[in-house]
């Protein structure tokens, strides 16, 4: 399936999407180096879900793992989409924010730790509302501080995608790896249909939804950096390459003038996936730009 030529010979159809969060984290780290922090047996669960009659998961849906990537110290934060849609609660969010803050402290002392975030999330966990929002802000602050020292690499593999406040966190990363199955957007298609009407967007029209916010479109419009097949080796290769490339000149979210100019060219009345590609062509820090 995959055409990626990586040193480790890829096996056929070694799906990354089908892996649960813990195995995703393990797949990105060098073999044998996976070491989980605050794992399920530490039982740091959401204190809020039982009050609302909802069963907890022992790791609150967030896996934090230390290890190495290409021999360099790394920390991977992976969200489990099967538990509450990968939503960010007080505990799951705090685990990720704290992992990033610890990596930042190491980086500031000259010991570089490579941070990877596996976004598979509908955003804030509604049952924990403001606490989830607050901790997403902490995560975003940590990403912005970290990316001065080391690339912060995000992965959106699918099938949940990355939405809400976490889409903003993904947008702040230095390098975003996506698959065709992945999706990145502020509001999910169901929310748009519910709030703006089916004339605006038919959320059951999967082709349309992916044309708008799918991984391929996000890569073609320069809002994601690497488009890979659903293959653990391909994802791992793209993440390792992002770190090997080092720090990008200017993070996307710091290119305010560029993006304001592009937005000014968009007319919301007649914007299409194709017209988006024409304006938001390719990666902003790549050299191939002028292509109609």
């Amino acid at each position: 399936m995959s055409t990626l030529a990586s040193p480790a010979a890829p096996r056929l159809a070694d799906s990354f999407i089908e892996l649960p969060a813990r195995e995703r984290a393990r797949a990105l780290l060098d073999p044998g180096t996976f070491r989980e922090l605050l794992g399920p047996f530490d039982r740091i669960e959401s204190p809020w879900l039982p009050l609302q009659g909802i069963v907890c998961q022992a790791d609150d849906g967030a896996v934090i793992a230390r290890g190495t990537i290409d021999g360099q110290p790394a920390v991977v934060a992976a969200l489990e989409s099967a538990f509450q849609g990968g939503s960010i609660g007080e505990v799951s969010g705090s685990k990720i924010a704290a992992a990033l803050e610890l990596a930042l402290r190491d980086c500031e002392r000259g010991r570089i730790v490579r941070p990877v975030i596996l976004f598979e999330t509908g955003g804030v966990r509604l049952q924990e509302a403001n606490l989830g929002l607050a901790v997403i802000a902490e995560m975003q602050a940590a990403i912005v501080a970290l990316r001065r020292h080391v690339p912060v690499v995000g992965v959106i593999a699918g099938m949940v995608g990355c939405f809400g406040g976490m889409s903003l966190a993904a947008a702040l990363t230095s390098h975003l790896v996506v698959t065709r199955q992945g999706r990145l957007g502020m509001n999910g298609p169901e929310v748009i249909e519910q709030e703006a009407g089916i004339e605006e967007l038919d959320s059951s029209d999967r082709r349309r939804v992916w044309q708008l916010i799918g991984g391929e479109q996000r890569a073609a419009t320069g809002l994601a950096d690497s488009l890979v097949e659903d293959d653990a080796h391909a994802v791992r290769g793209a993440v390792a390459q992002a770190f090997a490339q080092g720090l990008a000149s200017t993070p996307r979210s710091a290119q305010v003038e560029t993006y304001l100019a592009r937005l000014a060219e968009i007319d919301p009345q007649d914007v299409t996936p194709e017209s988006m590609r024409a304006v938001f062509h390719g990666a902003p820090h790549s050299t191939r730009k002028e292509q109609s």
Partner: protein
Amino acid sequence: MEHLTFEYPAQRALKARAHVGVVGSGDLEVLLSPAAAMTATVDVRTSVDGYGHIWKSVLDRFFQRYDGAAHIEINDFGATPGVVALRLAEAIETLDADSNGGGNTP
């Protein structure tokens, strides 16, 4: 949400622990660790109320064959009895494969 507890006799102590599954639709999470005494204990938290008798049947059957002094915690999100039995078997298998111990998961 309902909280159920069960106890079964045990014959041998455990040294390792195992974690399998996810609290997702139709699935469950199993945390298996050594019990404090020579008795197996099961703590079930389930999203579906009123199925205590089914849980007892599934666990009775499981402990007909299993004699480890395990403390088993189950976080259930509407798994069918078949899925529960498979996850329990998977936890034992993981324990055996990982019996050098220490790790959270295989």
